[in-house]
């Protein structure tokens, strides 16, 4: 089951369905951060995450009258964002670009900043599909069967990608002990 989304009142959703622009803005203010974070972590690219955020909310506003309310609105919005992320993951352009190594931004909630920076950089260096799987499974709480369906693949595919991602993350994090923080991930230009 996916992780719960930030709470929002039914009244706001109802107003949004009625075309109330202020309610649309409220949806964005509540779910913009989780969607941007999800996209940034899954795609390892700030520019692509921005695109996904924009495309997701255009779709949310244009289609909210079709939202039946049988699921949490946040889950619905995140599902749209995940589908858009997976479209990018499947595209050849994403598979050809090298990972970004930008400084992590945002609030510091727990743990050491150094550890979080190392983890973020390591995550960026995991192959695209494996990174998407590890985020959906470990953070968003999707099951292997759900991930398999989302990606049009099998449950076993999701399991093997998760194992691959964990292995790669371990390698990178263990290697980070011996290296300086800045050299954790060296971008490489993939040619195929």
């Amino acid at each position: 089951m996916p992780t719960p989304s930030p709470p929002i009142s039914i009244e706001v959703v109802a107003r949004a369905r009625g075309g109330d622009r202020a309610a649309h803005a409220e949806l964005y203010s509540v779910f913009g951060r989780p969607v941007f974070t999800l996209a940034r972590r899954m795609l390892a690219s700030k520019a692509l995450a921005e695109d996904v955020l924009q495309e997701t909310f255009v779709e949310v506003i244009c289609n909210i009258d079709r939202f039946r309310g049988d699921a949490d609105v946040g889950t619905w919005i995140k599902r749209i964002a995940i589908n858009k992320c997976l479209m990018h993951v499947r595209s050849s352009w994403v598979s050809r670009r090298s990972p970004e190594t930008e400084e992590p931004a945002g609030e510091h909630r727990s743990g050491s900043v150094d550890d979080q920076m190392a983890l973020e950089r390591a995550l960026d260096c995991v192959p695209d599909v494996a990174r998407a799987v590890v985020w959906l499974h470990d953070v968003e709480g999707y099951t292997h069967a759900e991930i398999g369906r989302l990606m049009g693949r099998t449950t076993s595919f999701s399991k093997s990608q998760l194992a691959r991602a964990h292995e790669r993350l371990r390698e990178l994090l263990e290697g980070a002990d011996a290296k300086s923080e800045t050299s954790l991930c060296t971008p490489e230009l993939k040619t195929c």
Partner: protein
Amino acid sequence: MHARAQDLLKLRELPELEPPAGVWERVLEGVGARAAALRFRRRFAVAAAVIVAAAAVPLTYVVAMHEVAPRPILSLVPLQPARVAWNEASYAPLVAESARLERLLAEMPPPRRIVVGSTAGTIVGLEDRIAYVDAQLSYAAARDLAPKYRRALWDERVELMNTLVLVRFAQTQGF
């Protein structure tokens, strides 16, 4: 497990990221652009309906002038042949047959990723002709035209559907 590997468990604790400024403004622009495109499509659809209706009038005249002879329905190669009991007074069997062919079409596997251009072109042409017949049927229903006019249209639709199913079947076989 190495101590740093414990960090794997901390993915959930990574901080949320603040979206860059200006994205909400771009969302609003995108929504406006979509709304404009939708309005254009609706106007285009109305214009197309008017054109179809105008074309349907002479067609009904032609149908009235020529009594339609019953024609056998093409059988479907991969499945059971169609058996339509012809009845001068009713076109219900044709409607049922058309629905059966729609179901067959829906159950067919999607085309392979690499398709033959000529086959794809044939399919598009058939779909366009079916859409045109559908528009004529809508017009016939709206004007409550006599059953024989509708029967002629349903007859044509079934033939087109039969052909489309055969071509789609061929496409699934890689042609």
